[in-house]
């Protein structure tokens, strides 16, 4: 059921050769699993690390300023200028679902990053079938129920949402609009047989508005809800009868409801339920299987512990 991927080709091509070699040496020695790498962090003059199964593993190597600049150029496919807008707000869309966090010194006028000092390359994973439990909650033929999926960062919301979108748009043949604000949800190889329309690089609010007005979707899927404009557009989409499946950062329903915008959506009855996800701890090792707890909208969430499904 679970399909693992190796380090994506673009990541291997972009990394300095000694960093790639070091990762594979550690993988060969059994100190990390290449297919389980979530993040690769490069810092000029400081240790490079990989985050694997929630642990930060130092590689014992650092990168030079020139190596980091070369890495940035390659991640931008040789056209750094074409990525200026996203670099300025802290990330690069490297394609194939790879988002790279950028850290550096912003120019005084705020229009460009003058010196990039570290990169956080987030490695996407395809885990087919990981959304099974969530799918049972949100899909009851022929209707799709709107739900909000929450978890702390790094647990796997994006991986799960990607699988969910591919399943709904694929085997269940629903018209899905996927709003991929930072170019990390959409993986071409995963969506090639689906009915998904993908808005890449659009803000969530703008994406929801476009989807509602012009794309006639049966469900809108987007990552990491947050601001009040997004809430306004979601209310508008809901009034048009379009369900939304979204994610948010929170470790519990109580924490989720402490966010004013999410609270507003809850009070307007936008979501039929809230699904929290976490990774299972099997024999002391965090595994890639997700557990899911569900709180229906009509339960008094503050008084009940979520039930596991």
């Amino acid at each position, binding site marked *: 059921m679970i399909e693992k991927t190796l380090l994506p080709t673009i990541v291997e091509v972009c990394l300095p050769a000694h960093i790639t070699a070091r990762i594979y040496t550690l993988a060969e020695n059994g100190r990390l699993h290449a297919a389980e790498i979530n993040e690769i962090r490069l810092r000029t003059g400081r240790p490079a690390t990989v985050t694997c199964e929630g642990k930060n593993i130092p590689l014992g190597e650092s990168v030079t300023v020139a190596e980091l600049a070369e890495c940035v150029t390659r991640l931008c496919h*040789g056209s750094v200028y074409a990525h200026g807008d996203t670099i300025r707000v802290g990330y690069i869309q490297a394609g194939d679902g790879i988002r790279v966090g950028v850290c550096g010194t912003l120019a005084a006028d705020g*229009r460009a990053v003058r010196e990039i000092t570290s990169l956080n390359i987030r490695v996407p994973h395809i885990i087919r079938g990981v959304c099974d439990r969530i799918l049972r909650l949100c899909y009851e033929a022929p209707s799709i129920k709107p739900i909000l999926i929450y978890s702390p960062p790094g647990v796997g919301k994006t991986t799960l949402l990607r699988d969910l979108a591919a399943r709904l748009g694929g085997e269940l043949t629903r018209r899905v609009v996927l709003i991929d604000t930072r170019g990390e949800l959409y993986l071409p190889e995963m969506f090639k047989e689906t009915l998904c329309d993908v808005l890449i690089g659009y803000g969530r609010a703008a994406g929801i508005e476009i989807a509602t007005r012009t794309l006639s979707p049966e469900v809108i899927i987007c990552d990491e809800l947050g601001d009040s404009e997004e809430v306004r557009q979601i209310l508008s989409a809901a009034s048009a009868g379009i369900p939304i499946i979204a994610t948010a950062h929170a470790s519990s329903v109580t924490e989720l409801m402490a966010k004013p915008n999410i609270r507003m959506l809850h009070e307007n009855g936008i979501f039929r339920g809230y699904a929290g996800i976490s990774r299972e701890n099997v024999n002391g090792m965090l595994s890639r299987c997700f557990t899911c707890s569900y709180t229906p909208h009509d339960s008094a969430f503050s008084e009940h512990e979520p039930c596991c499904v």
Partner: protein
Amino acid sequence: MLRLAGAALIFAASLAAGLCAAGMYRTRVIQLEAFHSLIVHIGRQIDSCLVPLDRIYAAYRDPVLERCGFLAELRRSGGEAALSACGYRLLLSDTEIHELTAFFMGLGRHSAEEEPRHCAYFSARIGELAEKARGELAAKTRLCRAFGMLLGIMLAVILL
């Protein structure tokens, strides 16, 4: 009679070598102008629409750069690699190759504000070199032809 035929042959060969040298110089000017057009095009595409390089390269057409294999290599592996792969088919001088290498080495590494300036600088440099070469073309063509002819006459006279 045989000596006369040999002298005529030597004269024709020297004349052909002179014409060939003139043709090579003309090709060099045409190649340099083609590179200048490419740089101007890249600069405009970046300045107006921030088009990524791979898309600029894919859409660019130029018979001179196609013929020497540069464009195909450019699309496959970028400017620097294309220059070294096609070096033997390019008739450019070391200075011109050096300038083009510097252009492609820096291309795509700057911000949206800096990149058009990078292109403008190298467009001016290559433009100057092309203009100078074009200005010298007529004189050098005459020189090559005359040198070939004179060499042919000289060798023919010696043989006779």
